């Protein structure tokens, strides 16, 4: 029983440390600055961005694609690891679900930032046309958001009940809140039955819904004629890219949460080792699709394709292209190949590079293509032939990234990041197994 007590003590949410307060205030400030920049954009129009008629989409869209990709982590850890009976996922799933929820929420907000007329948002429903890939996005994003919210919430019910008791004396207010959220969870067989079934359904749903989400995201591009987007390879390319971005984000966040919450006993080197192998697998699959995506056009060498590839491989975008390919894929694959490379500190570094490279990868997918249209770029100011984000775009994009981290921070602060009930059950099972053995 005593171990159970320490378990709750270890895993129950605790107040922010000083560092936590500073971190959160920093994020809030970044979000506020971005909000001011956005209001300015609303007033003046998107002329404050550096997007123009040729580079008609910029970092708002690549940032949106990044968020959508990152949200795939929930599908990966929960559904795939569940289906393959990888029980080491237990201490990691909740953080994965939190990242998923934060990322898909921000994806929805980011795409609205790119709309020049957000005041006409309702037209998407009033005048919806089902043949437009944007309408598919309008349907799938809220669906995925709902499923990932439920996937986070259902397994939390017993933990909320535990927290209600835990905070009874220390903080009656919090206790009341957790009590409300626990929906009168008592742990009766009937409740457990319903809960298990519900979790099963949403856990099974998150995989197809996640795959559809990534696919539609890819189709936003591949349904056009544009060189570099017009590819039948695009959907699996995006899915595998999302696998990389999501797993990278998970590794990074897990490392920080483990350090801040001192969870070294729960998230061990063993977990990082496993995560490292998973990330390595993701990178190898993504590398395969990258080779497909660039090698075949290079082989057939159509004129327009070559202009596009030339700017990527040797031209203006070469530094970025090689950074995202070597730094974001090849180096991680090599480092993660070694056991030492899968130690927590090394994993954190790799995870961080993977996340940053994943962000820039989307930029490399979106921008160069738009600057290589079928007809020559003539009759427009010279600056329109290039694109680099404006101050407004950066401020707003940083704000969306900060808001994503803020959502994660707040959820990590108030939710038990490691499932208490399930950890306890698994430990009991282990114990009984040991006693029966001996």
């Amino acid at each position: 029983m005593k171990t159970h007590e320490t378990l709750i003590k270890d895993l129950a949410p605790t107040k922010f440390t000083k560092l936590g307060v500073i971190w959160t205030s920093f994020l809030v400030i970044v979000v506020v600055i971005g909000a001011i920049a956005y209001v300015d954009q609303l007033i003046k129009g998107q002329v404050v961005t550096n997007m123009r008629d040729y580079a008609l989409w910029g970092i708002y869209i690549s940032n949106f694609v990044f968020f959508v990709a990152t949200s795939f982590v929930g599908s990966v850890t929960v559904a795939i690891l569940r289906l393959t009976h990888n029980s080491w996922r237990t201490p990691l799933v909740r953080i994965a679900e939190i990242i998923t929820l934060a990322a898909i929420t921000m994806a929805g907000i980011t795409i609205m930032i790119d709309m020049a007329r957000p005041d006409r948002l309702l037209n998407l429903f009033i005048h919806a046309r089902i043949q437009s890939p944007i309408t598919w996005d309008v349907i799938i994003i809220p669906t995925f958001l709902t499923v990932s919210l439920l996937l986070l919430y259902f397994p939390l019910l017993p933990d909320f009940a535990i927290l209600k008791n835990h905070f009874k004396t220390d903080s009656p207010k919090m206790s009341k809140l957790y009590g409300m959220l626990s929906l009168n969870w008592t742990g009766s067989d009937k409740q457990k039955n319903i809960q298990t079934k519900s979790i099963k359904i949403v856990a099974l749903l998150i995989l197809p819904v996640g795959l559809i989400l990534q696919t539609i995201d890819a189709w936003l591009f591949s349904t056009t004629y544009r060189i570099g987007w017009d590819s039948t390879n695009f959907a699996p390319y995006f899915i595998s890219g999302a696998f990389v971005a999501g797993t990278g984000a998970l590794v990074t966040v897990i490392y920080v949460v483990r350090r801040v919450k001192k969870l070294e006993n729960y998230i061990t080197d063993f977990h990082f080792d496993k995560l490292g192998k998973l990330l390595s697998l993701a990178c190898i699959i993504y590398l395969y699709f990258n080779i497909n995506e660039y090698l075949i056009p290079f082989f057939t060498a159509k004129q327009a394709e070559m202009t596009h590839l030339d700017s990527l491989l040797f031209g203006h975008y070469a530094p970025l292209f090689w950074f995202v390919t070597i730094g974001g894929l090849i180096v991680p694959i090599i480092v993660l190949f070694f056991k030492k490379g899968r130690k927590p500190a090394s994993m954190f570094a790799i995870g961080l590079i993977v996340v940053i490279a994943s962000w820039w990868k989307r930029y490399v997918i979106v921008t160069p293509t738009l600057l290589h249209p079928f007809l020559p770029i003539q009759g427009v100011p010279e600056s329109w032939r290039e694109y680099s984000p404006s101050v407004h775009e950066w401020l707003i994009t940083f704000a969306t990234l900060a808001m994503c981290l803020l959502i994660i921070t707040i959820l990590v602060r108030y939710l038990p990041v490691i499932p208490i009930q399930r950890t306890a059950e698994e430990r009991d099972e282990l114990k009984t197994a040991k006693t029966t053995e001996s």
Partner: protein
Amino acid sequence: MEENNKNSRRKFLDKGLKLGLATAIGGMAISKISKLNAKSNTNTGELVELMTTDGTLIQVDASEIVEVVSTHNKENGYNVREGIPNRKFVMVVDLAKCKNALKCQQACNKGHYITGDNAWLKVYKMQESKETAPYWMPTQCQHCDEPACVTVCPVDATFKRKDGIVLIDNERCIGCRFCMAACPYSTRVFNWSEPEQPEIAKDAEYTPDYCGSPSVKGTVDKCDFCPHQIVKNELPFCVTACPNGVFYFGDKYEDTVTNGEETLRFSKLLKDKFGYRLLEGLGTEPSVYYLPPVDRLVNFEDGLEEFTEFQSVEKPEES
């Protein structure tokens, strides 16, 4: 156990068949009855001779002749989303005559109050490869019959009319710019800021068939094929403005196109001069046809004087 199963299956099949038969007979009976009813109600016995579209004469009962109810706006037979009835507008651009005089662009800019940095009609300096001859190519919205922009629009803001014209409802457009990404001809232009148009445009009552009058911030603009001129029985701005008669505008159903000076058979012109369309391979089915720059009446070099690589809309002099 097995016997039992077989028996029940047989019974089931038997019942199913009977039920199906009964339904079929019932259905036939009902349709017969309704037909009888219909006939008894309407048959007048008076026959009228009519000619079908392929020229055969047929006889129809007088009662079955119903006047076609017009779906168009009753006032003038014109609905902005349907287009001008029974027309199909096309354009032919004769590249042999174009020397980049840019009068088309200037007239278009003026007529549509274009004040941004990107004109809707551009004259590209083209050269397929080093060894081939350079030429000037006026290009605007191709008014495709399979318009990629219309397919991807999530809110039906950009639409295709029966008369062939592709237009934009700037009061519905949400500014997602997906149509611009989808258009392979790069003809769409965005209002990144509040357009600085003359008062006459700003005060005009908005209608989708007169683009730029006024332009709307945060929405897409493009060549509208000048339906506002057509209804006045006039040719589009670019056609009238061109001093070299490059643009021919007309109606595919009437099989005629005119550049204001000469009127030609559309189909014959394309046949005689090897007409083609831009990026035909994409399957967009444009309404704009080009005649190749052969037997040129003008010098390519003459156009270089007017050529401005970084400008397509003249800016008013800074005062």
